[in-house]
């Protein structure tokens, strides 16, 4: 039921008679509200409150007389809060980013800190079966100094470099039979190794942070073939 503001004002002021058919009861009740909550004298604790007020006025007056101290304090507090908040927000964002990256299986710190895998260390092993077809037999320069094919004749070379996250299908023309046997074993090695110049089918790595190493050193003929 809507009430007219003027009627409400009269009612709250006590101008509505108690015998009013609509608001008489409410008017009478509002008259008694003052008795339930009378203005309470405060003499019992006035002294304590006035002492606190006097103390606070001294502080305020002192601050007004020395505004620089207060201003510097306020400035430092404000800038300090901003700085602390910025640093905190940065740390939170950084932690969240590392957490998300870890959840996705990415090693962000490893990406940042670990040096790029050296492709040349795997080159001799990885390209041994393919290099037979693509490069002339000749030097079997084990430039990397890692395990040479001679040490592991006919065996699947074990890549010594860090596994790269991007698998690449590398198939080179030539010795198809042997390639199939060693393709998987050497696939990872090929990932690190630079595709030979004649290997036109080697796709470019999708994710690579390593520069293209120089041309792979061809493996000695007959090496890397099983059997």
């Amino acid at each position, binding site marked *: 039921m809507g009430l007219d503001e003027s009627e*409400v004002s009269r009612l709250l002021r006590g101008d509505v008679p108690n015998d009013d058919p609509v*608001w008489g*009861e409410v008017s009478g009740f509002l008259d008694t*509200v003052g008795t339930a909550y009378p203005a309470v004298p405060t003499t019992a*604790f006035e002294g304590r*409150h006035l002492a606190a007020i006097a103390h606070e006025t001294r502080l305020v007056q002192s601050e007004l007389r020395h505004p620089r101290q207060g201003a510097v304090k306020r400035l430092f507090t404000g800038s300090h809060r901003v700085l602390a908040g910025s640093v905190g927000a940065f740390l939170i964002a950084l932690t969240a980013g590392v957490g998300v990256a870890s959840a996705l299986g990415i090693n962000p710190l490893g990406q940042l800190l670990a040096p790029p895998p050296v492709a040349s260390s795997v080159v001799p092993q990885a390209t041994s079966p393919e290099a037979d077809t693509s490069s002339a037999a000749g030097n079997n320069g084990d430039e990397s100094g890692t395990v040479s094919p001679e040490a592991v004749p006919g065996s699947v070379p074990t890549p010594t470099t860090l596994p790269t996250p991007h698998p690449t299908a590398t198939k080179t023309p030539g010795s198809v039979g042997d390639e199939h046997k060693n393709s998987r074993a050497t696939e990872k090695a090929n990932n690190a190794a630079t595709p030979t110049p004649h290997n036109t089918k080697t796709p470019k790595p999708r994710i690579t942070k390593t520069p293209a190493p120089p041309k792979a050193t061809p493996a000695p003929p007959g090496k890397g073939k099983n059997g």
Partner: protein
Amino acid sequence: MAIGPRFPQVLSSAAEGADWAWAELYRDLSPALLRYLASQGAVDPEDCLGECFVHMVRRLSAFEGDEAAFRAWAFTIARSRLVDSWRSAGRRPVRPSDTVAETLDLSQHHPGADGGLDQREAVREVLDLLTPDQRSVLLLRVLDQFSVAETAAIIGKSEGAVKVLQNRALNTLRRRLAPRPGSGPAPRPAAPKPTVLH
């Protein structure tokens, strides 16, 4: 008791830190403020009252206006302290505190204490039918005669919200206090007995 024409002088003296000016402002406002704090269920109305005036001292430089505006501003600060009191207690009270009644008993201003207590209890029982905001609006407008705009500023709501709250409070009182057809008289606080005030 309003300060009247002397208010600008009193206010400027208070701004300069004059103790007499703050004492005058305290005596003028503290009874109404204490009543408001007690009626709204402050955990410790007397401590809240002291905190109110301390905050008024700190913020006086930001105040501008006449005596009516100063009064509303004081109640606004009291409202803030009241909310802090509720938060510290971890609750929002639904019933006003009894400090006012106890203080009245101690002050010996009502010799007929039994009758006064019954009446107060009856009034409070009726006011308990209202929500805290409705009760706050009603008491501010009835006891302290604040306008809609001043009440809105004190409780931190819009004028429209204040009007809605007061209308709902009055309608609730009308429904509960109106005599029911075919029944006895509606429950109404007993009329105050004539007492002799000393």
